[in-house]
């Protein structure tokens, strides 16, 4: 157990050094969310006044947070794919470490990074006048909800890192997954304003429940039934991904 902690810490430290010395990677993931928050928030401010009932940026923020958490988690496996491509992963596996520490170290690093990025988005939102109705506790709750999505998506990304053959494929999948996943939810417009087929997809998209819960914390305060519903959906999603990840990765890391 102590050895597991030592080897996992070593790998987590490595990823944290990357984070500190390559802040551009954060900027890369934050680019889309920040553009949406600043420009889409500004552009649709007047247009949406009646339909969302208030400030559009405030309405948009949960969707932006979801996009941030999704994007960062989805990209989380990439460094492992690079390690696989350049031989470092094999060398790592020739050391007497538990294979699980490779996954746990990366998993922790990705989710620390996600939290950091969500804090930046919340800070930007604050600058643009977004206030959180549920207060400081609400801010914490928003970060936790971001992580609840991030956990499951990170596992998907770790699976992709070991299943995919090249990082080119990986970038393509990230590129085509983030925006549809967000648009096919209640991220940008109320659910009942979507066409039926989009509404049906949004209905099974965990992000919808996440965003609805976040939105209630931002716009109106603590809405317990909504939060419980979100927690159940996301925990089931995370559980399913952990189960799948365990099955697939056990094979690939033998």
């Amino acid at each position, binding site marked *: 157990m102590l050895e597991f902690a030592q080897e996992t810490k*070593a790998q987590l430290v490595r990823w944290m050094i990357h984070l500190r010395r390559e802040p551009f990677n954060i900027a890369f993931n934050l680019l889309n969310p920040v553009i949406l928050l600043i420009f889409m928030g500004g552009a649709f401010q007047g247009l949406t006044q009646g339909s969302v009932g208030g400030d559009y940026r405030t309405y948009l923020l949960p969707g932006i947070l979801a996009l941030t958490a999704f994007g960062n988690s989805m990209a989380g496996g990439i460094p492992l794919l690079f390690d696989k491509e350049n031989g470092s992963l094999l060398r790592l596996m020739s050391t007497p470490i538990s294979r699980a520490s490779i996954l746990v170290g990366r998993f922790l690093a990705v989710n620390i990074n996600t939290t950091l990025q969500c804090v930046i988005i919340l800070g930007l939102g604050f600058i643009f006048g977004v206030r959180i109705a549920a207060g400081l506790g609400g801010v914490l709750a928003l970060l936790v909800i971001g992580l609840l999505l991030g956990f499951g998506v990170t596992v998907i990304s770790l699976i992709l890192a070991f299943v995919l053959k090249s990082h080119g494929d990986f970038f393509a999948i990230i590129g085509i997954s983030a925006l549809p996943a967000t648009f096919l939810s209640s991220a940008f417009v109320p659910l009942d304003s979507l066409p039926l087929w989009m509404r049906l997809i949004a209905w099974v998209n965990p992000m919808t429940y996440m965003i609805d819960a976040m939105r209630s914390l931002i716009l109106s305060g603590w809405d317990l039934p909504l939060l419980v519903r979100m927690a159940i959906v996301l925990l089931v999603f995370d559980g399913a991904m952990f189960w799948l990840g365990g099955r697939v990765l056990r094979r690939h890391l033998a």
Partner: protein
Amino acid sequence: MFDTVVRIENLRKQYGPITALDDISLEVERGTIFGLLGPNGAGKTTAVKILTTLVRPDAGKVEVAGTDILKDPDRVRSLIGYVPQELTVDPYLTVKEHLRYYADLYHLSAAVREPRIREALGLVGLAGQEDRRARYLSGGTKKKLDLACGLMHRPPLILLDEPSLGLDVHVRRDVWNYVLRLKEQGTTVFLCTNYMDEAERLCDEVAIIDHGKIAVAGAPAALRSQLKKDVISVEIAGFNEHEREKLATLEKAVSQLAIVQATTKDGARLKIDVESNEIALPQILERTASLSIPIRTITYSRPGLDEVFLHFTGRPLAEEKEKDA
């Protein structure tokens, strides 16, 4: 303690239709440098990946310091240091951060960590560069860092896959010195290479591998002497066209010696193929003296492992390398 650090018996590995290793058996004694020598694609890297527990063999038995690689892979991993062919340093980390990273992966205690880091830095000659990021190091220095990372836990066996591939001449020499220092410290080294000079310079034992099979194994000197072929070259002093008969006389005289296998004339030189120059040289000198033939120079050359490879596999090693590239 085990005197045989690596024991491979009847090892086989198949990748689809390709037989990477075809019934390989070999042993490496403790404290020696062993070289697996062969062209690219001969099966060297597959052998190393099996020894490092990264690839499962199809058949055969492999033991590292008495531990079976299939029965207790985790223990094997703690007994080896593996430095792959590719550079695996992390550009974002400093030299010292790399060594700390590996210290933790090998579960070293905090008390031994710093002394070991200093020791490793000294061994590869990186002292004073602890705080430089790997990104800014030259290719040769990156390789040295890679080598240092593999010995943080003082493993009894170090596996080096093509350690001097693509390095400058002087860095290559540094890497060789590092390998020799490891041996001085009692570490066993298992080395893969397709450089003949590297194998000759470093290895106590070599096995020549070709198409997944070991063609021949033994000490480099023993392999060379199996070829029974040294070449002695005698150059006649003051040679001119009128003195051609001097060379012919000499050729006729040495041809009568039992140890001489063949002779060829080449300008002022006579090339004499012999089994062993130690025995042949005095006899040839005696003949030239008794015939009063003045000699300007006399040289001899031994066959290198290049010739050994050619002899045992039927084709030159260099040609194979070009074909792969």
